[in-house]
């Protein structure tokens, strides 16, 4: 579903839900909203062409109005408004959401009976890319799938994700549209057989002769990222002639069998080949046929490359995994036997200091995978009253441990008798044992004020607390501890207070107009703005006060775009 449309729905739901929040304890009775004689009027325009946008949905942060839908001149007007601070926001399905900024909005401070007339909301038009897919003879090739990929930073590194995909039609034409401004790679896969001549074979049988396929390709024609074009799409760009000339290559079938606990093998068996290149692990995945009775599998039409073969058997609490590196060349590999290993049972305990020690019951221990080729469920466990917990199905690999609902922070973690970092630790195959989580309640507080701050940047809407786009980010200086970063809203008077912070060295930043989590994921960007942050050192039970200046939105947006 398009993000634009989803956001519209959310906003409409939000607008209607907002209107129904009951302040009065009596049900079905809402205190009347104030009205007045003020008005907010304006136009929604295409940022590039400056033409009016018809049928844009415009919302005003006030409980007594429905969204307006602009007419042919892009015009909207909200009447009978009481004085106050409002945020006006516009959406249109043809104008996609920016990748890492909130939707465009205008802040309006309305005086009593004021008629504000010249509000302009610019919407950034989407970009489109079109072209043809051609076969080895330059003739149109039908049925290939073309994707626009963008790079996204995550806890386990950068990955390519698909923003949009479309199939080429019978004439080989394709068109990707509604792409938000940013850097993209374009990638095509043709999931089709290339029939070849063969002598009499039994119907329905497979041969081990190498199969021919069209090599998956990054525009303009490279099988991997190193030769791929990183294309910058500006708002409203309409790039044509992005043709793919597909090459025929030999592909092979990977087959083999699965062994292991027969109970496990009956549950949701899945076998996949996943690219060993971490950035491509979401894009290049191949599945195949799996015979549940004989536990044999066959993954056909695999192009040459470096992969990991991953087999999982999952069912509620049961998790089994087998992994093997597979390098595919032009010759069919030998059959691979994968032995499914049961995910380990890790029992553990949480020790917490403090006087009296807080309740441990109902805390949740969670493991998040850091391996790019991880498939399966993420283990989690509820903590008992005595602080013990039991994690089932922990597969070998790299993990991060977090505890939800903790009145403190994870100070240390030991696996068996080894101290490991809760942010990134390794579980060896077949290992099992006891986890000891040491929690400290001696957290720190940071408070202070943000400067370079405009009060009209804050809006009030009905009964809801302030909606604003000013955030402070407390980023640990140690990049390994990046997941301990904290993001907090700034109050309407420019002050902030962040409690429950893990002690350590941090740098404090203030941002406006950019989604803070995009920065939280991508620590290098903030690193570039180091000079505009304030160093904060936090002791156990400590308290620090800091001042920080807002980094202008344009600078951050530019840095994010260059990085994408």
């Amino acid at each position: 579903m398009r993000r634009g449309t989803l956001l519209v729905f959310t906003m409409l739901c939000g607008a209607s839900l907002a209107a129904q929040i009951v302040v009065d304890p009596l049900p079905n009775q809402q205190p009347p909203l104030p009205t007045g004689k003020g008005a907010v009027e304006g136009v929604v325009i295409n940022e590039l062409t400056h033409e009016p946008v018809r049928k844009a949905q415009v919302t005003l942060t006030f409980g007594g109005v429905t969204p307006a839908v602009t007419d042919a001149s892009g015009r909207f007007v909200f009447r009978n408004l009481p004085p106050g601070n409002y945020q006006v926001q516009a959406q249109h399905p043809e104008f996609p959401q920016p990748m890492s900024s909130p939707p465009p909005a205008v802040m309006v401070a309305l005086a009593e009976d004021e008629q504000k007339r010249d509000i302009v909301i610019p919407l950034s038009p989407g970009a489109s890319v079109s072209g043809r897919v051609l076969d080895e003879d330059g003739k149109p090739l039908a049925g290939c799938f073309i994707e626009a990929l963008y790079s996204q930073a995550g806890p386990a590194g950068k990955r390519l994700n698909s923003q949009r995909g479309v199939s080429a039609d019978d004439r080989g034409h394709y068109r990707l549209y509604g792409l938000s401004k940013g850097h993209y790679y374009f990638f095509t896969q043709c999931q089709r057989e290339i029939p070849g001549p063969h002598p009499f074979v039994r119907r329905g049988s497979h041969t081990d002769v190498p199969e021919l396929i069209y090599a998956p390709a990054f525009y303009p024609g490279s099988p991997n990222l190193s030769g791929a074009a990183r294309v910058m799409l500006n708002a409203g760009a309409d790039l044509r002639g992005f043709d793919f000339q597909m090459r025929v290559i030999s592909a092979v079938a990977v087959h083999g069998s699965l062994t292991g606990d027969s109970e496990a093998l009956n549950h949701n068996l899945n076998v996949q080949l996943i690219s060993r290149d971490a950035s491509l692990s979401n894009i290049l995945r191949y599945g195949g046929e799996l015979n549940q009775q004989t536990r044999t599998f066959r993954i056909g039409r695999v192009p040459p490359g470096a992969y990991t073969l991953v087999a999982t058997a999952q069912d509620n609490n049961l998790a089994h995994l087998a992994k093997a590196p597979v390098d595919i060349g032009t010759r069919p590999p030998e059959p691979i036997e994968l032995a499914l290993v049961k995910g380990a049972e890790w029992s553990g305990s949480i020790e917490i200091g403090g006087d009296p020690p807080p309740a441990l019951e109902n805390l949740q221990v969670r493991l998040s995978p850091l391996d790019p080729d991880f498939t399966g469920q993420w283990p989690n466990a509820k903590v008992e009253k005595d602080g013990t917990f039991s994690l089932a199905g922990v597969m070998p690999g790299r993990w991060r441990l977090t505890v939800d609902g903790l009145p403190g922070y994870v100070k240390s973690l030991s696996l068996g008798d080894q101290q490991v970092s809760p942010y990134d630790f390794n579980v060896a195959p077949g290992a099992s044992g006891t986890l000891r989580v040491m929690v400290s309640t001696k957290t720190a507080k940071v408070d202070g004020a943000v400067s370079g701050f405009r009060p009209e940047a804050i809006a009030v809407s009905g009964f809801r607390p302030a909606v604003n786009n000013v955030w402070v980010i407390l980023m640990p200086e140690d990049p390994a501890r990046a997941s301990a970063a904290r993001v907090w809203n700034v109050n309407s008077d420019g002050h902030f207070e962040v409690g429950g912070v893990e002690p350590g060295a941090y740098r404090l930043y203030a941002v406006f107009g950019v989604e803070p989590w995009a920065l939280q994921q991508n620590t290098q960007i903030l690193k570039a703005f180091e000079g505009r942050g304030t160093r904060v050192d936090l002791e156990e039970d400590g308290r620090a006060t800091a001042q920080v200046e807002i980094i202008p939105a344009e600078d951050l947006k530019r840095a994010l775009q260059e990085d994408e």
Partner: protein
Amino acid sequence: MRLWPHIRPAVLVCYISLAMWCILLASPALWAQSESAKPPVAAAAPHNASSEVPTPAFISGIVLDRATGSPLRKAQVNLSTDETVPLDAQAITSADGRFAFAHIPPGKYTLHADCEGYRHVWYGAATPEHLPGIITLEPGEQRHNFVLRLDAVAAISGVVVDQDGDPVEQASVALWEHSFSRGKRKYSQTSGAQTNDRGEYRITNVLPGRYIVKATAANRPAFRIQSEVIATSQPPGPQPQPQYGAQFYSGTDRITDASVLTVASGKEIEGINFRLPANSAVLLRGSVIPPPDLPADFQIQVSIIPQDALTQNQITYGASAGPPNYTFENGGLIPGDYLLVANVSAGDRPYRGVARVHLNAGADNNVTIKLDAGIDLYGTLKVEGDTGASATKYQIQLSPGDEIPLFGSPAAALAKPDGTFVLKNVVAGIWDIGVTPIPHGGYLKSMRLGDQDVLTEEMAITPETTAALQIVLSTRGGTLEGDVKTDAGVETPRAFVLLAPDGKYSQVLSFFSVVFTDQKGHFKLVGLTPGKYKIYVFDKLEWGSWQDPEFLKPYQTLGQALEIDEGANPSKQLNLISVARSQP
């Protein structure tokens, strides 16, 4: 080749034959087959008394576009046999459309071809509905004259806009082809496509035929311009989302007014455009009258089925009605005709209630559904004639004869030795009666529900039905045999023989029979109901087309009238000389 204009004809002929030999020798099929020293079938050569491997056969041919006559490259040609084990060999045509198969063990084969953008074709079959021709290859035989003509598929494209002329993205445009069911025109969805941000769509791989085209944009909010909003002191309640109404080409929301597109092979049909109206969603409110013995906490499920035509694969909406008032509502519907079916099981009995409603935009749509219990239908089964080794267990089964979905399995019963049976829990509706087994050569002689002949008329059961169902089977059905020849006296294999009832029962579908003539043009029908008939022979017949009462009218004079009597009618030879061409 620049040399062409300068070569004399004699040299040209040598050049061409040399070129052909080069092509044949270079054909990958040839080399591929020579790689396998022993094709599996050769090892089991059945018709050679000596243990020598029989001399292989060789065939070649060309694949062409039927309309333009131009050769097709990259067509997949398969030579298949099912004599001992199913085997296929495959050749791919080169740019000149040619293919060849070598080292073919003698035997019987079929030849078929596929090509991107074209329909599958079997050698020797005039249409995909005909049976493929059998190619018998003798040892050492060489045949070079195979021509496979493929029909290109068609494409349909256009633009979908809303009432303001703005493109509608992600609208679905679907092709519905018509068929006949129970004597009524019925449409079923075949293929479709979605529109892009410009409202453009393109449906490809369309087979020749007649279609209606329908555009819908379900789940797309249909925004209406409202540029001025006045604030109120009460927060506005949840706004029902305006929705796009469905539309048939061209410009109607009633399927009965839809234009029929005739699609010929290879056609590119553009400009099939739509303008979708935006409607406020309609609210349907209703209540169900529960059966008296319904336990207190039961919910009654109501299915809300759009009825703009007798369509298949239509989305069904739902609601549930529960105690104490058994009311239900659904606010997400577009105006139109709907069938409401309420189902519940209480005790051992199923209850069903049906209502038909037309929902109007902006109106208060209210409906009440009464649930009725199924009745027990009593009956008797008699068999006339000699059943031989008796004690056959006859089963009587009812299947829905209307389009109303049935909750649970249909009523069925075994007849007791005295012929009586009880079909339990038959809910109100139209039911078709099936009896198995029909004795070989026998027929269903009569079925009566009280006074009503339910063999030739539809059987409608209501909660007030008290009549008994009387079924009579007879072992003495009529038979009919004949040969079909063309005007020139040539045997006609694979012709369609249609036996249609004549006179007052000409609309009773169960009296129609269709059969193919065999390789020698011969056919045989058994178990026929005695009566007056007309017999027709077609070289092409669309399945079910005879259900259209208008279909046979143009061919009345070409059919031959005959009368079938009870009991075996051995070898009543008919030399039919008319071969009618049916319309595409």
